[in-house]
């Protein structure tokens, strides 16, 4: 087997996606902060006429962060990690290079179409699957191109055994493909009726069935975009940055196959007390609790990888990002199952505790992991030191503060809402009107918005640091083995 130093890896596509990650991160999170403040200052809805209301911008926020920031981050790391663990350079295959670039440019066109259509109010209303059929088709093409890239690279690999990260990237590819195709089955109405808007479509599924398919998709989009590929990242970047081997191979095995099997059952917990059959709800609830095992399996495997090396936390801010990410993953995967318990769900469902839960996962786990991964890649891609260690440190604390403000305000807001909706007076009548429970949230909504601003400021610090690293930092001659060099 060839030593990795002999191979010149080609990071062209990884660099494209790195830039996309940063740009979409800024766009998606700026929209997020804006809509957060719309809830406490509704006058902000009037700024851009019909195009700037909460209803139009909310899907723009979720989709640009999920499919803009996160997907770009996943792909940036794939085009970096894939080559290195398979011991093969993209430059060795003209075909794969072409596929990679096409993947990026088609994806960019797709994202542009998504942004325009959502602002125009063109949506199918299914959460995280709002796109109409022409964009759905474009997304499928982009996805197939990525699949070609993965299996093409695997086909010409020199390293025969697939490293753990590759398992997770393959699972991401297959999982999202399956979920996306089935949830987006729709009939374009123009082709049947010959009139109306050409891009309009109607869902193949109706009512309770549509809800079941949607949440089978919706929850597992969390699985295969927010969890599985992020685990792929931490399994590569934490050992690399820290110079420590993974704590346990058996635990990796158990948590991977466990996660694959258990996750897909959990979607039913979005539909507790709804009109889908009781047994589907119960399955959703039970499997959500079982899900703690494989999730904590991965997280504990990560934390124990740092065994005896905790001193690195002081020296290396990237280790801070990875360790905090694992910790938030544990927090989030404990909180989720708790919310999936029927009696807790009765209180929590429809409240702000849910976005609170989503955001400690996405900001803490997904965001920190992607930021940390791209920081690790930068010195190796650009052959430069990270521009400023101080800014990395400061960014870490600014963003951590933001996350804590975000989830604590939303926990309090959500539980307050749930309690007020069900509260009764001494005669058994409802104690509050609905608007009472809206007005009481004002300070929490504001605090959440401020937490969002903190996080967004951190993203700008990251963008600045990455930009300076690529353009004007100190050059390094030899690729660093472990800890990323930073000035």
């Amino acid at each position, binding site marked *: 087997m060839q030593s990795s130093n002999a191979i010149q890896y080609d990071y062209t596509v990884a660099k494209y996606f790195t830039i996309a990650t940063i740009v979409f991160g800024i766009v998606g999170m700026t929209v997020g902060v804006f809509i957060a403040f719309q809830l406490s200052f509704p006058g902000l809805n009037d700024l851009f006429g019909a195009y700037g209301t909460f209803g139009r911008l909310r899907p723009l926020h979720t989709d640009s962060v999920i499919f803009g920031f996160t997907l770009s981050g996943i792909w940036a790391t794939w085009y970096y990690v894939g080559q290195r663990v398979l011991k093969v350079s993209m430059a060795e295959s003209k075909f794969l290079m072409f596929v990679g670039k096409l993947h990026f440019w088609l994806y960019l066109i797709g994202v542009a179409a998504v942004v325009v259509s959502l602002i125009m109010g063109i949506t199918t209303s299914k959460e995280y699957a709002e796109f109409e059929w022409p964009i759905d088709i474009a997304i499928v093409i982009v996805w197939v191109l990525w699949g070609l890239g993965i299996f093409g690279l695997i086909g010409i690999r020199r390293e025969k055994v697939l490293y753990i990260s590759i398992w997770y990237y393959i699972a991401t590819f297959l999982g999202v493909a399956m979920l996306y195709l089935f949830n987006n089955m729709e009939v374009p109405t123009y082709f049947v009726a010959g*009139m*109306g808007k050409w891009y309009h479509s109607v869902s193949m599924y109706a009512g309770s*069935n549509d809800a079941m398919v949607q949440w089978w998709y919706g929850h597992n989009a969390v699985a295969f975009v927010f969890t599985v590929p992020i685990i792929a990242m931490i399994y590569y970047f934490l050992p690399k940055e820290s110079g420590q081997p993974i704590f346990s191979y058996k635990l990796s095995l158990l948590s991977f196959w466990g996660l694959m*099997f258990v996750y897909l059952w959990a*979607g039913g917990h979005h539909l507790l007390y*709804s009109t889908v059959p009781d047994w589907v709800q119960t399955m959703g609830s039970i499997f959500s609790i079982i899900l703690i095992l494989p999730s904590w399996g991965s997280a504990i495997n990560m934390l124990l990888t740092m065994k005896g090396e905790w001193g690195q936390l002081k020296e290396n801010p990237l280790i801070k990002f990875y360790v905090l990410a694992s910790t938030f993953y544990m927090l989030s995967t404990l909180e989720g199952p708790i919310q999936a318990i029927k009696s807790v769900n009765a209180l929590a469902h429809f409240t702000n505790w*849910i976005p609170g839960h989503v955001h400690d996962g996405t900001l803490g786990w997904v965001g920190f992991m992607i930021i940390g991964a791209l920081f690790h890649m930068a010195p190796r891609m650009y052959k430069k030191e990270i521009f400023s260690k101080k800014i990395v440190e400061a960014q870490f604390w600014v963003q951590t503060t933001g996350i804590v403000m975000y989830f604590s305000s939303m926990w309090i807001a959500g539980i307050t809402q749930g309690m007020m909706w069900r509260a009764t007076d001494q005669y058994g009548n409802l104690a509050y009107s609905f608007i009472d429970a809206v007005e009481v949230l004002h300070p929490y909504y504001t605090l959440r918005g401020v937490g969002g601003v903190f996080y967004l400021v951190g993203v700008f610090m990251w963008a600045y640091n990455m930009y300076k690293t690529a353009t004007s930092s100190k050059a390094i001659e030899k690729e660093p083995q472990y800890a990323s060099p930073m000035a």
Partner: protein
Amino acid sequence: MFHWLEKNPFFFAVGVFVVIAYAGIVTVLPDFMESARPLVGTKPYTTLQLAGRQIYIQESCNACHSQLIRPFKSETDRYGKYSLSGEYAYDRPFLWGSERTGPDLHRVGNYRTTDWHENHMLDPESVVPGSIMPKYGFMFKKNADLETAYAEAYTVKKVFDVPYDQPNMPKLGTFAEAKAAAYKEAGAIVKDMKNQSVKDAYKNGQIKEIVALIAYLNSLK
């Protein structure tokens, strides 16, 4: 076995796919036939209501309002009878929502009037002080898109056998007929409205988005 899989990407991928597809096959598929049955008395949307529903979707009203009343006393006291599966048989897509930034709307037709909705869309705080809902004045200016609504109704009738044009069910007919029916249905709503420009537009044969949306909201019972 796992070591072998890690050296054989094809079988590894097949293995992963089988393991992840399993849950979907067991939980999602079996129920499809059963729960798609409409409840007695549930009817498909008229063209005008469907046009209103499309506006509801266009503005993502479902991002803040749910349409699912859970079987708790606090909810049935507040919103009305809890929701039943058969009531949604003609809902494509479903609009249950996942958040209640605003109240549930599944039976809003029972307790809000055309007049109330009109004021609420123009200026939510005029009827609900403290409301954080955006103002939807632009719905009073744009025309409802009956073509696309008809196309959708026609499609679900053709492809999914939704019972339009059957005894005791809404009539769809040709587009000209559907348009005439929508115009008539809109008349009853416009009569209860105060906005003069909407009334004038109606006299000129136009149906504004707000009229279609109210038709849809009034049908939620």
